[in-house]
């Protein structure tokens, strides 16, 4: 591998000199830049689409592969692992991750393994296998792998991590489109959608678009009140529960 490095650099330089101008342009777009979480929200379907053009503005006329990565706000988490201790399954081990995305979806036009090699996939985080979770502390690679796989598996089954190979449709070597769905349990925040155009195992163009997921209306009001006005919120909850119990008692007593 290392022996080839100078050769690669040389070819890269040659590319820049000779072919640099011919790198395609990626124009990404997203069906909505804002997702409102309000009453009745059951998740959202995002359509990520766009075009790959040659610099002259004509169609790229070459075969490209497209990979779209949609990533939610990153959070620090503790991942706890249950083990059987004295006949009971209890949390016995844990690992802290500094940057676990709350949502992560990869869509590609072909299986990732056929588009790029492992190294490129790891650099651009193309695929759940290559998620960089930054565990905190000194951890054995084997243990880290076990926990990372556990997290990915868990989030996958909750619909928060997804990998959809072959779901990006490319038409006429120009237009591409991918549909990615968000479940209702997504976190609010800014989501980034990064699109990669790949040819010959190399990323030749990439572009980022953003989506804001936020609570609106009543939902926003409730979440903010619970966070900032604990006293009032709690009092309100108590009054509502006492009131409803009392009213029901009165209604049924008369009826």
């Amino acid at each position, binding site marked *: 591998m290392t022996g080839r490095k100078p050769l690669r650099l040389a070819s890269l330089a040659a590319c820049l000199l000779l072919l640099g101008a011919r790198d395609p342009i990626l124009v990404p777009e997203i069906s909505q830049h804002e997702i409102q979480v309000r009453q009745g929200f059951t998740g959202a379907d995002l359509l990520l689409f766009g075009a790959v053009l040659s610099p002259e503005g004509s169609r790229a006329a070459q075969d490209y592969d497209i990979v779209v990565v949609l990533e939610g706000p990153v959070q620090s988490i503790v991942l706890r692992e249950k083990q059987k201790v004295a006949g009971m399954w209890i949390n016995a081990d844990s690992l802290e991750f500094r940057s676990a995305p709350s949502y992560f979806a990869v869509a590609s036009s072909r299986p990732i393994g056929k588009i790029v090699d492992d190294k490129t996939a790891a650099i651009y985080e193309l695929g759940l296998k290559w998620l960089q979770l930054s565990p905190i502390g000194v951890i054995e690679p084997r243990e880290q792998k076990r926990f990372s796989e556990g997290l990915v598996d868990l989030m996958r089954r909750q619909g928060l991590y997804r990998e959809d190979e072959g779901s990006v449709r490319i038409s006429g070597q120009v237009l591409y489109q991918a549909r990615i769905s968000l479940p*209702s349990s997504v976190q609010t925040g800014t989501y980034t959608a990064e699109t990669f155009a790949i040819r010959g195992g190399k990323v030749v163009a990439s572009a980022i678009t953003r989506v804001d997921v936020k609570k609106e209306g009543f939902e926003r009001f*409730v979440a903010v009140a619970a966070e900032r006005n604990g006293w009032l919120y709690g009092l309100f909850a108590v009054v509502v*529960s006492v009131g409803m119990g009392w009213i029901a008692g009165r209604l049924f007593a008369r009826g």
Partner: protein
Amino acid sequence: MAPSGLLARTCRPSVAKAMDVYLPIANLSVNGLVIIGLGALTGLLSGMFGVGGGFLTTPLLIFYGVPPTVAAASAASQVTGASVSGAFAQARRGGIDYHIGAVLVAGGVIGTGLGSLLFRLLQSLGQIDTVINILYVLLLGGIGGLMAQESIAALRAQKSGQPLPARKRRHHPLVASLPLRWRFYRSGLYISPLAPLLLGMATGILTMLMGIGGGFILVPAMLYILGMGVNVVVGTSLFQILFVTMVTTMMHALTTRAVDIVLAGLLLVGSVTGAQLGTFFAQKAKPEQLRLVLAVIVLAVALRMALGLGYRPDEIYTVVPL
């Protein structure tokens, strides 16, 4: 009893779609009818047996996918609603000993404070779920067993026509050994206020941790440990539960911030109606039979929880924000 079963029975797909409700604190969308049904089920129990029904709400909500903290915090306000009308009814017929009730409530408030500290400690250790599960198994198993034994004995005695031997002592010898004695006229007791205070504290801690009202622990404890009379036990326990769950809701609103008002509202709609139906049914059935049914339900929940501890869980991993 499984939510999915309820879902299938109560609504067709088109209705399910229309009843999707987003819970702003739990951060997920649920079927509103399922939650109302859940509330009605526990309300029915509370009306029939005079228990809060929280011991069923919390585990079922967790089973349905609601985060455990949100489930416990919101179930507490449901228990408030379910116990209000019962408490009013008991107050009218003089079934509340306010004196001992006040001591119980004071203990309950201290208990919720302690419970909230304990909650945080266990949460940071990552053992809150295990502790809640073990508590459920021990408490429900123990009390369900006792209730079953007693009601079977009572039913047998009825059949054979022989009355049960009368209970020998009024209150537990440990209670008599406590210092400082007060007279509680309504209950006809001359005991140390420390006994109801400690009992109140214990139920306060449990309410905070498990989202239960503690009625099913309080009632037998008042009968057999404090030696209170049957005519004031249910009313006084409802009185204590009412205030302690109110304090618990406040405590959760201020510390864990996990009270989901939408979830609590849905549960309340179900439970207050269910509670009225339950009261209606309760008047038609024999008390011994009712207690046997309650004992079976309590034991079933305990068994389910015990199996949950022993079997390999569906999820080995859990994510907690740092």
